[in-house]
């Protein structure tokens, strides 16, 4: 049985690696469409991380909203605003190398912070199912829920008004 546990641990680290690989693709590739595909890889990796943490509901929501919704939007806009094979234009600005150095310092700082903080861990890992999340949404967290839905409606109308083409008529 220990071998199974070891295999699943290796699997989780592999998911971490794939997610980071997808993220690197998403921020460095010159072709923006390939970058969007890299983001798809990273988002699926994050969903797999949720599944590995027994947050299945969140994993499914991640795939449904991010991959099914947001990615479709992003790819649609990429298609509407660029031509196939736009590779000659530089896609990164001149802040690239300073940003890289700063980011490396940030990673080092964050890793040190994470390692030196005395975390107060639970004795047992907690898991919750979709029903508990639903009840909490309708109970203690009803206000954030309602505000989110209000913001959603406002954003929906706003997006339609902004993107409408016959504004001047």
């Amino acid at each position, binding site marked *: 049985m220990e071998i199974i546990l070891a295999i699943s641990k290796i699997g989780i680290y592999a998911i971490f690696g794939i997610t980071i690989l997808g993220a690197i693709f998403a921020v460095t590739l010159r072709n923006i469409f390939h970058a969007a595909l890299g983001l798809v890889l990273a988002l699926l990796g994050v969903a797999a991380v949720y599944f590995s943490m027994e947050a299945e509901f969140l994993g499914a929501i991640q795939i449904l*909203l991010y991959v099914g919704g947001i990615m479709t939007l992003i790819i649609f*806009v990429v298609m509407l605003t660029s031509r196939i094979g736009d590779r000659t234009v530089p896609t990164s600005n001149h802040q690239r190398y300073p940003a890289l150095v700063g980011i490396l310092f940030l990673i080092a700082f964050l890793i040190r912070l994470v390692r030196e903080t005395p975390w107060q861990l639970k004795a047992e890992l907690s898991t919750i199912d979709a029903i508990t999340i639903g009840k909490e949404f309708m109970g203690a967290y009803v206000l954030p*829920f309602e505000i989110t839905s209000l913001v*959603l409606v406002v954003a929906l109308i706003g997006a339609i008004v902004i*993107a409408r083409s016959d504004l001047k008529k």
Partner: protein
Amino acid sequence: MIPLTHILIFTSILFSIGLYGALSRRHVVGILIAVELMLNAANINLVVFSRYTNTNPATGQIFAVIIIVLAAIAAAVGLAIVLSIYRNQKTIYSDEIDILKW
């Protein structure tokens, strides 16, 4: 299972990659992609904290769901703005959109 610190190191690397993308991209959609990466890293952190530390276990996931919804909103409005800019300015590179600059 996996120690808490390893997951946190993973999410901080993910967040930093996103931040690098947001700082270095010219393409507006590229910046949006990088922002989505940062939001995802923060989301994993929320879930991990509520799973490993002494908090209400539902809180992390509930706020993660709210963040996903807000990310969807940001993407919808942001991409509507990108479309509108492209239609009027014929460019989607953030340093060429400078009509407010003198």
